[in-house]
């Protein structure tokens, strides 16, 4: 696919998603630091091109499973940003009625099977979603996002084995950001590229530049098409970097300062997108600044409305465990 086959309207929406994710995370960084939001918070900033590159090719019927670093996948999959913000504030109006928080934010109506606090825990879930599609003969696909660290989990190995055996319509997207918490990937993952691991499942595997929306879009697109056609799963490794620490508050002493600077200054996925879309003559600087402004307003409203929204009732702690009691 030529990268500029996408229309201006589409690219504007792509940029809007990426900008929204970035802004959402920047807001959170401040809100958590200010003590307004509690819980464990992992930010997606820096990895926007992956979530948006993949999810912009999915419909609501396609199912996505995510990680502890899940805000980006939610926004990319079309989950309402205001309801997300309300969730993080623990409000009754949140996506999960305040019961989930950052690590469990979800919206099944949008095909978002949830962030997941268990590293590797989302992988079998999307494998199961793909199984549903296959058993029922539907043409929707499932996509599982996970980190480099998660590829060491048994759940990764077992799920990919099953998907390979059954040729399930699933795309596994590894967001290789070079670290699992504070430990560099190369200390604990004994392969140079994560794609090597696909050989254990005779699975199709592709590497993408996770900072470049167009590269992710193209490679994910092929894989999704193959999956829809019944040609089985792909492991897509996206090389990326997280711009903040592992969690909000992480002082990141473990990472190389120059390396971090280089990624943040020179490989920002939003900058790369802007440059490419501008150079191709499809979008103009104004387009970007307009979106920037709109996103800023949206997020400001999201925070204000979330702060003003009602808390759940204490009695709500008892509901939603079972369908039938």
């Amino acid at each position: 696919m030529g990268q500029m086959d996408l229309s201006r309207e589409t690219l504007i929406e792509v940029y809007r998603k990426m900008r929204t994710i970035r802004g959402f995370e920047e807001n959170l960084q401040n809100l958590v630091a200010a003590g307004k939001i509690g819980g464990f918070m992992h930010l997606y900033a820096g990895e926007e091109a992956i979530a948006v590159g993949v999810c912009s090719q999915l419909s609501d019927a396609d199912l996505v499973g995510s990680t502890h670093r899940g805000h980006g996948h939610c926004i990319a999959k079309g989950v309402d940003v205001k309801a997300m913000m309300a969730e993080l504030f623990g409000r009754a109006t949140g996506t999960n009625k305040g019961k989930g928080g950052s690590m469990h934010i979800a919206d099944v109506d949008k095909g978002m099977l949830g962030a997941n606090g268990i590293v590797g825990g989302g992988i079998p879930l999307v494998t199961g979603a793909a199984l549903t599609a296959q058993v029922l003969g539907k043409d929707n696909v499932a996509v599982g996002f996970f980190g480099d660290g998660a590829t060491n989990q048994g759940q990764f190995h077992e799920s990919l084995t099953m998907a390979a055996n059954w040729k399930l319509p699933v795309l596994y997207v590894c967001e290789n950001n070079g670290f699992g918490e504070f430990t560099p990937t190369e200390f604990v993952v004994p392969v140079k590229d994560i794609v090597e691991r696909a050989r254990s499942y005779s699975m199709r595997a592709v590497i993408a530049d996770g900072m470049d929306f167009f590269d992710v879009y193209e490679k994910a697109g092929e894989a999704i098409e193959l999956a829809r056609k019944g040609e089985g799963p792909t492991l897509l490794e996206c090389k990326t970097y997280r711009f903040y620490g592992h969690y909000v508050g992480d002082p990141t002493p473990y990472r190389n300062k120059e390396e971090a600077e280089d990624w943040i200054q020179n490989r920002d996925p939003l900058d790369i997108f802007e440059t490419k879309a501008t150079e191709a003559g499809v979008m103009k600087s104004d387009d970007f600044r307009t979106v920037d402004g709109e996103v800023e307003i949206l997020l400001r409203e999201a925070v204000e409305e979330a702060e003003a929204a009602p808390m759940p009732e204490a009695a709500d702690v008892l509901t939603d465990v079972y369908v039938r009691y």
Partner: protein
Amino acid sequence: MARELNTGAAINEAIAIAMRSDPNVILMGEDVAGGGDRSKEGTEEMGGVLGTTRGLVGEFGMNRVRDTPIAEMGLIGTAVGAAATGLRPVAELMFMDFLGTSLDPLLNQAAKLRYMFGGKVKVPLTVRTVSGAGMQAAAQHSQSLYWMTTGIPGLKTVVPSSPADAKGLLLASIRDDDPVIFCEPKGILNQVGEVPEGDYEIPLGEANLVREGSDVSLVAFGATVAIAMKAAEALEGAGTSAEVLDLRTLSPLDEVAILTSLEKTGRMVIIDESTPRCSIARDIAAICVDKGFDFLNAPVKCVTAPHTPVPFSAVLEKAFLPSAQDVLDAVGEMG
């Protein structure tokens, strides 16, 4: 003449009925189709290591009856994902001991998705699993870990005590919209009994008063119901009228039935083939000393296995498992 089946056959029949009546029901697990030559679908298959699912692949085909790798975390996790997205999977966990290799998708996903998502998803999954001792299968293939699944909010746990109950409870479990752990105790798998034909459900959460009595309540479930019945007969011989309550479902628990029986008799023994600490037996005893305190005329006794792994040698396994004599001793100790 009434038709008799063993528990395995009753379970097989329940699965077949559920699959016929709902195309979203699938069966998956290690060797549930049963290996063999895939070109001859439905022939020569083994149907699970104990043969419980024999023949189902023949009727329902390999799209709906799936042999999985030996990978319980993946198998159960995939079933959870399928359940959350429209299927109603019946997943076989060959032995309950394999909760060790499959706990996460049950503990952290199936049990919690609905709650974490604010009620916006349901997980109509049934995990069938063989529990209990009695086959000299030793420490890693003989555990009664239903206390572990009962302790996890969001899961339901069912333990049938007869072929007929197994069929009706399994049908109800498969059709329940919550994740259910359905135990198949080794002690009842070969038990033969009358099993009604056709489609029927036994509701989850309702205990079954299998014998009425006035002097002491024997609360049992699964393989211990037979022990309780045997003890009740012996007690009758000695002039003590024992009531036997079969719990059928451990979660949700029929507290009303337990307390009603306690109110009637004032004395209770709970018989549980698992180990004692944090067991179902102790859970129920605690409910009695809280909500049933005024009814109590004697200590509540728990007859369980000892706090040890399950031994191999027949002599030791027999010493490990609760017996009718242990129940009589407990009643005796009550004074």
